[in-house]
């Protein structure tokens, strides 16, 4: 008897706990009182040397600590001065920068041309091991002209140069950096940014404090929050509990289904980002011996997939179906292109025309995409007789197989480093490199032209031609732009940006 009684009681307690789990915590206390913003990430930030960071978590922290020469105002699309007061192209491959005077580093050192030269000339060397070579391989050398004037000599024309200088290439204090290197700057980050790092347990916990001597006229000025505490909490449910009980004020990357449940207790904001999901087709795979090599087959696959339903069901929020291999928010992403409506009958007709009236089997690897989306694509294609052999892999394995030309279709996503320019994604996948399994010479020519021209008109015209051809040839099945759900304390004002760089210096309490 005791046994049944205990079991019943246990179930009752558990059920009670479960039902109250989501109905509690309506009174968000937040740390408005102590003016401290409490933040949690699920993934561990990398060491705080921007040049070696791949993950957003570390980059967000770094952007609060360090500044670049320029800054991009995403609301207006304008590049504005930051550590450099003004800049100009003095030749096809040279740029000159006039630096701002009176800027102080967190350690009290003055910012001068030596810091720019010392930082950039170090990170461009191959031994330094900058994570993304594309971010610095266009710099040949940097010269000091006087204490507040530098010249950058480019090694090749690169249209993304200004975008890169806009906060992606921070300036470190040269004396400290020369002595301590990458490991030193990561252990003791010193920058000119709006927040300075007070303490860190790398990967676990970070505390930042507002930097009172942050320079006048900075695009990151006006911070009102005194302290920011960042912790790593891997389990989303634990983050929700902390957010609802008021010990967290800011979390992100909340899965869509859970975002809906949180909405009634805390602020939930969905914001579109640069990252897009796509199915890449590889006409070159298996030496061109797959049905994918036939344009009609590729078009049929897109017609057969009900992308609208997939986006509504699994992405939600600010996500929309795409027709282009780039994000419409990016420069050069032409939207006047061939589109493919959901039309299974047309798909069947195209398949029959291509000689596949009875369908065929095809392998598709998906990586870093929710399994239901891949299964939905497979279900839609099954309706027109195409049997997808689905295979979920880590991104590294998937892209490895893709580069080895062993994969006719790859379902994944790409983030363009959060940059609002089509240059990166198009050139990577269609510019003739290792990820380009289309190897369309015409595309590669247009893209090279667009990537290296300094005239925006020329660039936009060539990207437009490329985007149109990719859509017409159905080289990709673009899926949707990603969105990020943020969970915020009810007291917090926070504006998300499509580049996924949280700007806590612009956050405030209500």
């Amino acid at each position, binding site marked *: 008897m*005791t*046994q049944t009684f*205990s079991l019943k009681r*246990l179930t009752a307690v558990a059920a009670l*706990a*479960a039902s*109250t*789990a989501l109905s*509690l*915590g309506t009174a968000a206390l937040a740390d408005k009182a102590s003016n401290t913003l409490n933040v949690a990430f699920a*993934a*561990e930030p*990398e*060491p705080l040397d921007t040049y*070696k960071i*791949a*993950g957003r978590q570390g980059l967000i922290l770094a952007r609060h600590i360090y500044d670049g020469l320029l800054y991009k105002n995403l609301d207006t699309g304008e590049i504005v001065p930051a550590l450099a007061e003004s800049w100009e192209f003095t030749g096809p491959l040279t740029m000159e920068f006039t630096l701002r005077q009176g800027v102080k580093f967190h350690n009290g050192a003055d910012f001068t041309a030596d810091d720019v030269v010392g930082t950039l000339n170090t990170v461009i060397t*191959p031994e330094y*091991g900058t*994570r*993304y*070579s*594309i971010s610095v391989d266009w710099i040949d050398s940097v010269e000091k002209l006087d204490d507040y004037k530098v010249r950058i000599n480019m090694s090749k024309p690169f249209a993304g140069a200004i975008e890169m200088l806009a906060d992606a290439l921070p300036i470190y204090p040269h004396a400290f950096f020369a002595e301590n290197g*990458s*490991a030193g700057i*990561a252990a003791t980050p010193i920058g000119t940014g709006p927040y300075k790092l007070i303490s860190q*347990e*790398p*990967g*676990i916990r970070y505390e930042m404090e507002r930097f009172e001597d942050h320079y006048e006229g900075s695009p990151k000025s006006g911070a009102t929050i005194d302290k920011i505490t960042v*912790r*790593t*909490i*891997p*389990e989303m*449910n*634990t983050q929700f*509990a*902390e957010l*609802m*009980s008021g*010990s967290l004020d800011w979390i992100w990357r909340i899965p869509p289904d859970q975002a809906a449940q949180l909405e009634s207790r805390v602020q939930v904001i969905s914001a579109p980002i640069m990252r897009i999901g796509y199915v890449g087709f590889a006409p070159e795979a298996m030496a061109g011996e797959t049905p994918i090599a036939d344009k009609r087959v590729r078009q049929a696959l897109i017609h057969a997939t009900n992308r609208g339903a997939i986006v509504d069901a699994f992405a939600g929020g600010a996500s929309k179906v795409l027709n282009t291999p780039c994000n419409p928010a990016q420069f050069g992403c032409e939207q006047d292109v061939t589109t493919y409506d959901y039309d299974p009958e047309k798909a069947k007709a195209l398949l029959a025309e291509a000689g596949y009236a009875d369908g065929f089997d095809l392998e598709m690897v998906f990586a*870093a995409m929710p399994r239901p989306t891949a299964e939905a694509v497979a279900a839609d294609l099954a309706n027109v007789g195409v049997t997808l052999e689905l295979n979920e*892999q*880590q*991104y*590294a*394995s998937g*892209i*490895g197989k893709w*580069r080895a030309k062993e994969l006719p279709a790859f379902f*994944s996503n*790409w*983030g*363009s*480093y959060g940059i609002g320019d089509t240059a990166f994604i198009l050139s*990577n996948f269609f510019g003739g*490199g*290792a*990820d380009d399994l289309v190897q369309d010479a015409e595309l590669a020519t247009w893209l090279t032209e667009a990537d290296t021209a300094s005239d925006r008109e020329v660039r936009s015209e060539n990207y437009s031609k490329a985007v149109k051809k990719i859509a017409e040839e159905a080289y990709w099945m673009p899926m949707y732009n990603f969105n990020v759900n943020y969970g915020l304390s009810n007291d917090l004002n926070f504006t998300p940006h499509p580049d996924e760089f949280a700007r806590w210096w612009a956050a405030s309490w209500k």
Partner: protein
Amino acid sequence: MLSFISKRLLVALLVCLTVSALSFGLMFVSGDPAIAIAGSGGRAEDAEAIRQAYGFDRPLIVQYLDWIGSALTGNLGQSIYFNVPVTEIIGNRAGVTLTLGFISFLVALVIAVPLGVAAALRPNGWIDRIALVIAVSGQAIPSFWLGLMAIVVFGVWYGWVPISGADTWQGYILPVIVLSYYAIPELMRITRSGMIDVLATDYVRAARAKGLPMHLVISRHALRNAVLPLVSLAAVQLGQLLSGSIVIESVFALNGLGRLAWESLLRSDLPVVQAIILILSLLYVVLTTLADILNAVLDPRLRGGS
């Protein structure tokens, strides 16, 4: 006894070597580490640079021998992700795991053994029934669920303990309760069945017949014999508590070795993964060897044919 110990140690060494070689090979089966380190935005050129920098382009056997060679001299290498020595990271993270593991182990033992003994004294009595409920629910409820419920009730609802993190000792309360709860059932059941067997033997009956008080019968005669399987099981349990608390560490945001191993696997931080696997396999081997030796001390029959 000496030859027994040296045999056990040799086997232990071979186990460690096999585990490290297998895990090294498996890391490369799961995908090109260079591409994984380059990240999702990394181009083929970036991956190539990483491949060169970390020597992933060399034959696997050369890389393994290189690694084992430095490991034998105590150099476990640099973490690729954190860019600091592996020993430093593991040193930073081991404290949490060791604290959590040992305390949970002690709590589990202190509850499981007396409860098992009490249950064995009156099979099907009310203590035995309660013990059964604990055992069944402990084995049936998933630990992440129990952890989250504990957070909701005691962290969010009552606010008695911190929801997550190990900044204060209070942060350990819930994780220890949840973790030890999962170690209790097996320990308790093996104590109970061992005791029931022993209590039915002739020598126990003899001890009671000569008028020894029950507590002396249990502590001097019964428990010492019933404890043999418990020692072996406890060694494995302690190994699991020290190595396998990935779920608990994640739910309560404790930054221990379990989570470090898991995260390092996901980001292809091979030196860290290899080091943790080596340390944990060593730990298991040491614990089971200790248990074997302890059992041999307790029971001369196990010392083999010498």
